[in-house]
């Protein structure tokens, strides 16, 4: 799970205790840019839903939307965008492993199809393999897209490659549902 947050910076600035985002004590992955004169930061965090929810519930941390994050990035770095502040999502790797997929297949993608960063393409690729494994077809994503703000599934994919958390979480939430359904059926079958 990923989220945009604005948080304070902690740490003494030494190599062993560097300045870093305050993340409510959660050991999650993160990427940040300093704002407000270096006292705070815009940060993209990624971890399990439980970890991210604890971070978002912290009163010293503010959750931001893609658009709010973009405005902050653009105000400081006009030539950069959402894709330039991103972090690989460990939740996708764990889901992949639970389905017997090696998350290292991310590395199959080395040339970005949009922008200059390869991270978003690698994540999209891994989520596509997970979807295939779960039987979530193109028709499924087209239907889901129509029910929401997109018209076709391919538009969700484009938004993921642009670094939009909204699209990333849209896909991931449906993967989580399908995964829950799959394992629920398996446990029912075992009990029977």
């Amino acid at each position, binding site marked *: 799970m990923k989220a945009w947050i604005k948080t304070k*910076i902690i*740490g003494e*600035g*030494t*190599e062993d205790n*560097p*300045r*870093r*985002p305050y993340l409510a004590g959660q*050991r*999650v*992955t*993160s*990427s*940040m*840019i*300093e704002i407000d004169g270096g006292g705070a930061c815009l940060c993209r965090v990624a971890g399990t839903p439980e970890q991210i929810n604890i971070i978002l519930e912290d009163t010293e941390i503010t959750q931001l939307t893609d658009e709010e994050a973009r405005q902050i*990035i653009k105000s400081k*770095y006009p*030539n*950069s965008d959402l*894709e*330039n*502040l*991103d*972090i*690989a999502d*460990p939740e996708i*790797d764990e889901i992949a492993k639970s389905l017997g997929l090696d998350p*290292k297949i*991310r*590395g199959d993608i*080395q040339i970005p199809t949009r922008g*200059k*960063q*390869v*991270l978003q393409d*690698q994540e999209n690729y891994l989520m596509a393999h997970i979807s295939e494994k779960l039987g979530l077809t193109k028709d499924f994503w087209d239907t889901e897209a129509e029910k929401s703000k997109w018209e076709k599934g391919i538009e969700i994919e484009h938004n993921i490659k642009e670094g939009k958390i909204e699209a990333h979480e849209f896909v991931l939430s449906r993967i989580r549902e399908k995964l829950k359904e799959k394992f629920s059926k398996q446990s029912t079958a075992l009990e029977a």
Partner: protein
Amino acid sequence: MGSFSTIGATKLLFEYTIDELARKFNQAEPAVAASYFDNLFNTLAIAKILDNTNLSIQKGQEIVDAMSDPSKIGTGGRRGYLGDDWQDNKITDRDDAATTSTALGRIFQIFRPEWSGGLAEDGVFKLTGTDEKQYCSSNFTTGYWYVKWYSTGSSGSWGMRFYFMWVDNNNHYFLDYRGDLPDLSLKKTVGGSTSTLISKTDVEPAANYWNDAKVKRDDDGNFEAWHGYISLGTCVDTSITSSNRLYLGCIGDVDTYFDNLQVY
């Protein structure tokens, strides 16, 4: 390698692409390389260059410049990269380092830099001291920084630090790949204060195994860091815009090896 001392054999050289030709020069023994030059640039061969639409005089001149004077790399369209495979088992008295970033085109050449210390043994670079780090000159500020690293650590602190765009002790970027935590980070030190830009805490580098580390930076200050073929994350920072050196360093009191450094 065979002999290229006849005109007939020289024609074979023209059948190579520019990249292949550059590699042949790069890999040849000095005497063989000299024979390449003799044959490539005799009167008949030059006529062949003039007649060959795929091989212009300019490109031929680039080869000569690239092979004969590494300090010219990156200027006037000459291409190359700073790199090291330590195959000569030396750290000093070596090729001069290419010092200017350049878009890598069709001709490339590895220029082994002079190192401040460390050991070059069995074709790899070895650091054995506690938190030891050694440097070479480099003023690259855009492109890719890549190195293979191997640590014998399995307990206590272990990992590697790859400092790039190092201006001085108080201003530089570095990959801080810790195997013991684990934490693969991209950090910056500005005005003596260190900050974590990217932190990936769920990926564990393997001890006693060759790991790959890579980072990219473009003109706008956009970074992307890798562990192997996997992108760890991206960030943007423009605090530092120049470079004097790069450093390779170990973490803790653990023998750490490096190989195939490439900056391009």
